[in-house]
C-alpha cells in the first residue's frame, strides 16, 4: 500500500513537471534569460556607434558610473521622486480612507471613482496632464493658479516645477491604490477594540495612534513596499510629460538608463545603469520586507 502510494506520487510528480514545464520554460526565456543577458552585457563594451571598441569591459562600466555626474544626479532625483511620491500617496490615501469610513452609505461610489486613475495607462496619464492640465495659458491647473492670483506657472518648462509636476502626476494616479488597500484594511478592523477604548475614554486621536495605526500596519507596509518598487522604476508618465527634461531636471535613473541604451546606443553602459537600478530596487524592498517581518516577530 505504502509503496504504491509512493509510486503514484512520483508518477504524478513527473506528470506535474511535464505540465509545468512549458510555462516554466516560457518564463525562463522571457524573464530569466533577458535578465542574465542584461547582467552579462553590463560587463561588456557594447556601443553601436563605435562597434570597433566592443568587447569585454570587466568592471569598467561600473567604475565610470562612479565618476559620472549625470548618474548621481539621476540617482538623487530617483530618491526625491520615490520618497516624496510614496509619502504623499500614503498620507493622502490614509486620510481619504479615514474620511470615507465615516460615510455610512455609498462607499462603493468612492471605490469605483478611485479605480479610474489606476486603470489608465501611464502614458495616457502623462499626455493628459501635459496637454489638458499643465499646459501654460490653456491648462486647467494653470487656469486655477492664475485665478487664485499666483500668475501663470510654466509647470513642465522650468526645472523645479517640472519635477514637482511629475511627482504630483504619479501621486494622482496611485494614491487610489493606497486608498483602496487601507480602506479595506480599516473596514476589517474589529469594532469591539474601539468600543473598549471608548469606554476607557481614549479620544479620537489616541484611538488613531494606539489602535488604528498598529492594526493597519501590515497594510501600510505592503503599500509602501509595492509603491516604492513601482516608483523606483517609473518611466512612462515622465517620458510622456517631460521626457526627462527640461534639460535633465526630471531624468530619474530609469530614464537615464533608457536614454543611454536606446538614444545614445551605448548598450553596455546602459545595461550597467539598469543593473544598478535593479540592485537598488531589490535592496530597498529587501530592507522593507525585513522590517516588516522583524517587527512582527
Amino acid at each position: 500500500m505504502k509503496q504504491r502510494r509512493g509510486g503514484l506520487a512520483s508518477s504524478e510528480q513527473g506528470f506535474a513537471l511535464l505540465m509545468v514545464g512549458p510555462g516554466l520554460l516560457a518564463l525562463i526565456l522571457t524573464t530569466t534569460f533577458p535578465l542574465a543577458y542584461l547582467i552579462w552585457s553590463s560587463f561588456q563594451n557594447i556601443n553601436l556607434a563605435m562597434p570597433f571598441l566592443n568587447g569585454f569591459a570587466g568592471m569598467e562600466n561600473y567604475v565610470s558610473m562612479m565618476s559620472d555626474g549625470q548618474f548621481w544626479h539621476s540617482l538623487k532625483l530617483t530618491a526625491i521622486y520615490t520618497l516624496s511620491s510614496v509619502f504623499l500617496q500614503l498620507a493622502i490615501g490614509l486620510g481619504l480612507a479615514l474620511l470615507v469610513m465615516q460615510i455610512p452609505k455609498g462607499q462603493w461610489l468612492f471605490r469605483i471613482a478611485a479605480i479610474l486613475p489606476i486603470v489608465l495607462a501611464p502614458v495616457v496619464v502623462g499626455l493628459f496632464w501635459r496637454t489638458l492640465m499643465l499646459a501654460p495659458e490653456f491648462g486647467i491647473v494653470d487656469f486655477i493658479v492664475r485665478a487664485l492670483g499666483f500668475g501663470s506657472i510654466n509647470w513642465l518648462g522650468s526645472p523645479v516645477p517640472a519635477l514637482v509636476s511629475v511627482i504630483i502626476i504619479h501621486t494622482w494616479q496611485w494614491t487610489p491604490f493606497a486608498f483602496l488597500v487601507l480602506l479595506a484594511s480599516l473596514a476589517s478592523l474589529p469594532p469591539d477594540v474601539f468600543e473598549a477604548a471608548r469606554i476607557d475614554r481614549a479620544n479620537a486621536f489616541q484611538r488613531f495612534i494606539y489602535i488604528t495605526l498598529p492594526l493597519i500596519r501590515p497594510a501600510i507596509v505592503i503599500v509602501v513596499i509595492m509603491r516604492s518598487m513601482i516608483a523606483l522604476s517609473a518611466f512612462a508618465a515622465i517620458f510622456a510629460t517631460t521626457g526627462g527634461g527640461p534639460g535633465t531636471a526630471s531624468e530619474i535613473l530609469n530614464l537615464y538608463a533608457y536614454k543611454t541604451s536606446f538614444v545614445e546606443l551605448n548598450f553596455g553602459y546602459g545595461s550597467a545603469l539598469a543593473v544598478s537600478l535593479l540592485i537598488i530596487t531589490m535592496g530597498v524592498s529587501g530592507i522593507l520586507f525585513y522590517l516588516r517581518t522583524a517587527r512582527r516577530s
Partner: protein
Amino acid sequence: MTNVDGNRKKPTGVTRRTALKTAASGLALLAAPATVMRSAHAAGKHMDLDSLRAAKIDWRQAEGSKITIGVIPAGYFKNLEAVLSDFAELTGVEARLEMTPPGQIRQKAVLDLSTGTGTWASHSADPMYYPLYVANNWVDPLDGYLGNSKLTDNDWFQYEDILAGWRGVTSVDGKPYGIPYDGEATIQVYRKDVFDKLGLKPAETFEQFTSNAGAAHDPDNRLWGAALRGFKGAGQNMYIYPSIFRAFGGEWFDGSGKMTVNSPEAVAALEWYINLLNNYAPKGVENWNWPDIADAFGQGTVASYIDAHGSAAVIANPEKSKVVGKIGFARWPKGPSGKRVTSIWNWSFPINSALSDKDKAATWLFIQWAASRETQIATSHAFPGAYKRTGANRTSVWAMDDYRAVLGSAGDNFISATTTSFAEDTDVEWRPRLPQWPAVGDTMATAIQASLVGQATVSDALNEAQRKIEGILKG
C-alpha cells in the same frame, strides 16, 4: 499585347470571348477599339506604367519577392502606399509599408539592422544616421546599384536630378547609401498682414528677425513675436540650433578634426536663440516641436517662425488655420558670418545589407520606383486625394508648372523661398556627421534646453556638453 501582364489578360480575354460570340452581329467592331485602347494606354491604376517600362531594365527580375519597408505615418508616405499596387503590377514584387511613428522609427531600424534580422528591407532613414549605418556595414553602398546596367537605367532614372544637398547628406565619403524620397528646407514664415500693418519686411539679418519679433510682439492681444523649436531632441531643438550655429560662423570640427561645441560662435548662437525665445515666444515653447508652432501660428497667436516649409500644409489649411491668405515666406535671415543656412532634411531609402541578393534587387527596384520622376508626380500634384506632397525630391519636378500651381496657394513667395533655399542655403555640414550622432545630438539637445529654461548658463551648458561629447567620442 505581349507585355500585358496578369491583371490585364482577363479583360482582354473576356473581350475576345465576347467578340467571338458576337462576331456575326458586328459588335466585334465596337469591342475591338476598346481592347486596343486598354493595352495601348498601359495604365496602372494610378500612373502610366509605360513611362516606367521605358527604363531599359527588367522590372520583373525579382518577381515573387516580398519586402517590408518601415516608414513614418506621414501624408507623403500614405500617398506612396496608395499607389503601391502599381509597383506590384510593374514588378511582381510584393512591397508592404509598415507605418511607425517618427519617435520610434530610428530605434526600430537600429535594432533591426544591428541584429541582422532583415525585417525591414529598407526604411525611411534619417540622413544623420548614415555614418552610424556605414560604420557597422548595416547598409549597402548604392554606387554598385546605380552603376549596374542590369539594375539601373540612369538615363531614365537620372539620380543627378535629385536635389544636390539631399544627395550629399545621404552619401558618406562620396558614396551614396540612401536615395532621398521626400524632404524639406527650413524657411521664415511670417504674418503678412501684421508685417504690412507695422511696415516690417521679412528679416534679412538675425538682428532684424529679433527686432521684427519685438515689433509684432503683443501678448496682451494674444500675439507673440516669434517661435522656434524648443523641445529637447536631436530632431527638435537640435534641428534648428545647427542652422543658427553655422550662420554665426561655427564649425563643428576644428582643423585637427576635434569636435568643438563651446566655441565663441556657439555661445553667441545659443544666446541669440535663448534671447529670442525668452523675450518673444509664448510660454511653454521649450516643450514645442514643429506641430505646436504651426498650430499656434494657424490660430493667429504667433507672428513669425522659422521651420520646415512643409509646415505650410497646416497653416494654409482652411480647416485648421485662421490665417489662410495672410502668410508670407522668406529664406533664412543672414547670420553674422553672412551665411544663410537651411536644414538639409530628407527621408531616404537605404538597402539593408542583411538581405538575400534577390530581395536586395527587389528593394532596389522599389527604391528606384519610389524615387522616380513618375512616382514623385503621381504622389504629388497628380495625386487625386486631398493631400498633395510639398517635398518632391527632384529639381525637374520643382520646375513643373502643375506642381508649382498646387504649392503656390500656400502663400506669398512660398515656392521661390523654398527653391532658393534648396539651391543656395544648404550646407552638408549643417549638423555634425559622425557615427556617434545619436549620442552627440541628444547631448546638444539637452544642453540647449537646459540653458533655455535656466537650469544652466549658456557657457556652463556648452562646456558640460563639450566634456560629455569628448567622453562619448573617446568611447
